[in-house]
């Protein structure tokens, strides 16, 4: 059964140095509050997995939390590059970052395989591309029925998956809607699961086929309003496009990035305090 705890407690007891961690959310419901808490608790040597690293992993990578990244598209959506990710890959700053690069279709299939307790994913993919040349975990398998050669890639089995959702009830049953990405599969593929939610409600009042994660597949659930900002939570708040754009200049320079992480994450006690700081007009003026 999921336990209702603070985000600080959830990270302290479930995310360990060296863990393989997946924090999913496809543009929508990205668990930024949890990402900040991992930075705040100074986790190191994490092996991060995420289809679209986005700003959340740019922050974790720049803060020195990661030693490996498995991903399929590493950009700032609608803006351009992830500068901390690029600096780590191109210049080993602040620490070298090993990368395992795959395609969206592959990683989506690999999460499904993980959730289904299978060792690998099978897909029609990568034919003619250079991926297998640089990633020896992208292999092939021959169909025993037709003889067709298909791509075979290892299942994703995180130690911890972290997602953000709209609601959970008092028992810890979680409801999410809108763009669902691979969150359900990432949760079911993991050993431990942290879910942050916009609100704790008496009853989920959801339709029979809604995407509900039963309490007993979740380890820790935490109420963190606006916990996905600057991404968005459908039905609650919009994507903060101004911040996504501002991140381009905040993250471009090592000193400016480090100062930002210090002031906004390491020196704030919680995500609520981070949000308070973000709403400070003097801080806002820097972004505009």
């Amino acid at each position, binding site marked *: 059964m999921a336990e209702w705890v603070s985000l600080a407690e959830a990270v302290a007891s479930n995310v360990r140095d060296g863990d393989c961690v997946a924090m999913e959310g496809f*543009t929508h419901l990205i668990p930024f509050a949890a990402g900040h808490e991992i930075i705040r608790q100074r986790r190191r040597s994490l092996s991060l997995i995420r289809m679209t690293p986005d700003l959340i992993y740019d922050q974790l990578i720049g803060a020195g939390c990661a030693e490996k990244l498995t991903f399929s598209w590493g950009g700032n959506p*609608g803006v351009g590059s992830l500068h901390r990710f690029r600096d780590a890959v191109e210049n080993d700053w602040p620490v070298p970052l090993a990368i395992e690069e795959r*395609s969206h279709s592959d990683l989506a299939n690999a999460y499904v395989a993980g959730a289904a307790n299978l060792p690998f994913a099978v897909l029609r993919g990568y034919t003619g591309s250079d991926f297998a040349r640089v990633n020896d975990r992208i292999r092939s398998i021959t169909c025993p029925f037709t003889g067709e050669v298909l791509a075979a890639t290892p299942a994703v089995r995180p130690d911890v998956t972290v997602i953000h959702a709209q609601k959970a009830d008092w028992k810890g049953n979680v409801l999410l809607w809108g*763009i669902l990405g691979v969150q359900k599969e990432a949760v079911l593929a993991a050993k431990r699961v942290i879910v942050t939610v916009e609100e704790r409600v008496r009853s989920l009042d959801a339709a029979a086929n809604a995407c509900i994660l039963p309490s007993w597949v979740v380890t820790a659930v935490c109420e963190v309003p606006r916990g996905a900002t600057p991404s968005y939570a459908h039905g609650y708040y*919009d994507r903060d496009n101004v911040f996504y754009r501002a991140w381009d200049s905040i993250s471009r320079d090592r000193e400016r990035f480090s100062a930002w992480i210090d002031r906004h994450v390491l020196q704030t006690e919680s995500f609520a305090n981070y949000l308070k700081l973000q709403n400070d007009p003097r801080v806002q003026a820097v972004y505009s």
Partner: protein
Amino acid sequence: MSTAYTADEMMTVAAARMLRNGAVCFVGIGLPSTAANLARLTHAPDAVLVYESGPIGAKPSVLPLSIGDGNLAETADTVVSTPEIFRYWLQGGRIDVGFLGAAQLDRFANINTTVVGPYAKPKVRLPGAGGAPEITSSAKEVLIVVKQSKRTFVEKVDFVTSVGFLAGGDSREQAGLTGKGPVAVITDLCILRPDPISRELKVATIHPGVDREMIASNCGWQIQFDENCTQTEPPTEEGLRVLRDLKARTAAAHGVEGEAA
């Protein structure tokens, strides 16, 4: 309004025209998304726009800034999970057209969005594959929209992220790829189509105001012109009006220019 238009507008309008009404189109973010939505708002109201984040039949009133914007979900016929998009809808053979961009492209329309320079020590680390490798292999056909320059049109791509016609000729079929591959590349200067035999891209139509020298000097290989090469039809007033309205609505909604990277 003025009928003068920019090279970018010509490119977007020309790309939009390529999408036929009713086609099921897997849409990349940025230029492809702009062109696909322009098509939907003009001659192709029944085009079905599919985004890799899960929306099927999205009808956004403003352009999405990211591939998973909320207005895609709100306006879609249905929203499915990302594994389902790739497994049932793309690999399942339900996509007529993949509409993509590129960072680098070679004469056989192979796409690189991974690295500039050697993979282990890249000069520029690009975002990577996203959904493109399986879109170029599994969609029934592919349209590519990309601004033309020596930086983008290269003799040899540094990394094959998503395949076009591989080494040309029948090498795509030999590799066992199911889809037909790229049928057109739309740039800010011209429209290229693959030669039916060699599969090398050849200039099929030249945008108004552009000459052969401009096209050749913005290409990293010795570019060929089709013997029946003609001029691209200029944008109509209506097409330009709809495109500009869409961009203005987008800028107002996002507070930023609505064109993704």
